[in-house]
């Protein structure tokens, strides 16, 4: 015969396999990283590859990121796919501001990362001048596989975040834009 207390905390075949011990961070990050809702900021040719990633052949649904939302209120990862002109930069930043925390930014392709081949009066030389970019993806345009790889790296990054700390502090990681010559 065992006591009631021993029965609750000790081995109990009825609940075995249904209880998981983990840290809150690990669970929050696991949930967040597997349901990234992208905001497709398609601005130029790279957006075509982004569409390819969302379509059946490459199927980003396998990684839980297929729910592309055109409303900033419903998305948490802005994929900047294309050439950011100065004129558009203002809108890009405003849309980013309207996205709910926590949120991430992926700079897809040469243009979004650095201005690409557009050394021109009209083009912002890298979207990291207005947004805190988490992942940069090279290519002009990057192949869909490269975008998937970038998104998987974003998942890895999300899994290392201090989410409980962010929730307690009531604020996500402070936004850091790169400094240095611009």
């Amino acid at each position, binding site marked *: 015969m065992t006591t009631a207390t021993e029965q609750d905390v000790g081995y109990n075949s009825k609940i075995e396999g249904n209880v998981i011990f983990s840290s809150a961070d690990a669970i929050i990050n696991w949930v967040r990283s597997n349901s990234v809702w992208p905001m497709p900021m398609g601005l130029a040719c790279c957006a075509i590859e982004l569409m390819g990633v969302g379509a059946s052949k490459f199927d980003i649904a396998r990684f839980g990121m297929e729910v592309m939302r055109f409303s900033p209120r419903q998305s948490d990862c802005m994929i900047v796919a294309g050439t950011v002109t*100065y004129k558009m930069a*203002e809108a890009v*930043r405003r849309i980013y501001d309207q996205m709910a925390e926590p949120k991430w930014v992926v700079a897809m392709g040469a243009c979004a990362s650095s201005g690409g081949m557009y*050394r021109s*009066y009209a083009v912002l030389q890298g979207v990291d001048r*207005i*947004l805190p970019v988490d992942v940069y993806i090279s290519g002009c345009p990057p192949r869909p596989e490269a975008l998937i790889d970038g998104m998987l790296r974003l998942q890895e990054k999300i899994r290392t975040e201090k989410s409980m700390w962010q929730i307690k502090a009531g604020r996500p990681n402070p936004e850091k834009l790169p400094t240095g*010559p611009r």
Partner: protein
Amino acid sequence: MNLKETFAFLEERPAKDCPAYNCPAGHLVNLMQALRDQHGYSMLVDMTAVDEGPGQTPRFIAVYHLFNLESFEYLRIASACEGDESAPEIPTVSHIWAGADWHERECYDMFGIRFKGHPDLRRILMWDEYPYYPLRKEFPLAGFDMDFQAADVAERTGVRIQPAPMAGGPFVSGDEGPMSEKEPRAKDQSWREQHKKPGGSGPA
């Protein structure tokens, strides 16, 4: 059909591809109306402009490409703008072809040509407050340093509008030989990543 016989004010313009004429700005609207209604040039394919460079007369030339949907012929009409270099003027044709509306706005945006009678002459590519006309010859490709147009965004992010790093560019291919052998090259080959271009911009 020789258009010059019908329109005596036309002047032939050298061209390699299709008939081309110069037309004085004063006759432009009547000419275009007649070409569309009586000569079958019902389609305005494109409307653009040429900047001949500072101090040239004429400096700005508006160029219209028309297409005849009955005889399948192209026609080019060029018309020198009137007025001051800083504010050249030409009459609008947007009431003849509705499609000219945005072409003319683009020309205004890029060259600063004022289309007289245009219903809504605003910038179309650059933002409204942009102070320059980028396709004018004196405008540098890299652009100028200036404040970002949205002050609140600039304050939060520190973004500025800055001359683009040209890295020895623009990158152009030579005029000689077949296309397959002409790799685009930086015009200024003295530039390298490691050392600053003498007297120029670029990373230190």
